[in-house]
């Protein structure tokens, strides 16, 4: 499973736990708030789950806006 698949699984878990059902395929260009309908607490949960999986706080240097922004940070060597 590559990093993108792992990230998609995290997003799916967050949506599923809170009964958010979106009819869309997750692609890197999607915006976290506007397209994936994440509110502040969902973004906070995303940040903690990503940190647990990848050991990186993706919000360390400010806000991130898209799935791609997160991938860029976690894929950085």
């Amino acid at each position: 499973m590559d990093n993108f698949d792992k990230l998609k699984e995290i997003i799916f878990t967050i949506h599923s736990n809170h009964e958010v059902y979106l009819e869309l395929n997750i692609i890197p260009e999607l915006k976290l708030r506007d397209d994936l309908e994440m509110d502040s607490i969902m973004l906070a949960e995303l940040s903690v789950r990503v940190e647990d999986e990848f050991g990186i706080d993706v919000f360390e240097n400010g806000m991130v806006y898209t799935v791609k922004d997160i991938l860029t940070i976690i894929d950085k060597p």
Partner: protein
Amino acid sequence: MENIFYKDSDISLSYNELLVRLNKRREFYEVYYATSYFDFVINVLLGVIDHQNFVLTDYIFGKGENSKPLAVNPKVNTKEDLIHLIRNSKAEVGIYSSGSEGPPKLIYQSIQRLLQSVRISDDYADSNWGFTYHPAHSAGIQFLLQVICNGATFVNLRDLKNDALKSFIRQSQVQYLSATPTFYRLLAPYDQPLPSIISITLNGEKSTQKLISDIKSLCPNARIRNIYGSTEAGPLMSSDSEDFTVPLRLMDKLKIINGELFFHHSIVSKSVINIEWYPSGDLVEIIEDNPLKIKFISRKSRIINVAGHNVNPQQVEEYLLKLPGILDVRVYGRANKITDFIIVAEIICSDDIIYTEKDIISYLKEYLPIYKIPRIIKFVKNIEIGRTGKKSL
């Protein structure tokens, strides 16, 4: 032009419509589960103008049983009459505070006390105020009083997300905005200014200098006020940075003991106090001695701040332990850059029970508001015990 009382992205209601709906009501409830925010406001106003005490619960929308109705017969002819009645109210409002330890406490604040921090000026008439708080928390009630006592417009921004939120702020020409630091963090990116905003208030959690600078660039025409207060003592100090200079009127009402801020009983709601100095649960650092300037560092108690809302983990633990097959639990906060903390739970289940994260979350949603729900649930075999003998945080 008709004076608008309430506006959200779907509806707009005038002060005349507010008065018509208020005068039609014949029943007031001390504890009320409303069908909409507007319905909630009507019951609150009935209590306020009829001098009836009322209690606000975490869930205000249809999740419990109303108290016995009390017959009322309001006759409010004009907006000015309504303001006069509010300003002379003898009612008290009961709000659940997370407290510094133990289960949530019901604290009564008089409307008169809440009105002390309401600013009234001719400049505020016809102005637009952006609403972001939980309607049933003290900041939510104070906001309602602030708007009505000035005959201003209440612009409901709750539940709007980034692009739609900023666009509605622009479209509604919001001038006054009061919110938690979490709300302002989510306004990023700060590249397209919101010029209509002339006043910004930050409330409910610790702000940083970086956030205050970001808000200044987003709202170049705004004066920024960072407020410190508590449910028990109301708003106490304001500042334009992350440091607070203690005002003269509070010099003998605040004390710092081992880094924790204490309130003198004279500034704390009478329903919580029987000691001379009340522990705030907030740890502070002294920046300057004369005049006294302080900076807030963190919470001392187990209370967890989630996006400006205080969460008492003991309350969440009590609900979890009611589920069959749950042997032990530990609820704690996990730090993050967006909401300060989120709630995490560790659970030990008996061998014959299998729960999923979703099962636990769905169960808790029946009883607790969303910010109190653990976002991450770990099913474990052991729960760590700290050096004090308590479950470590």
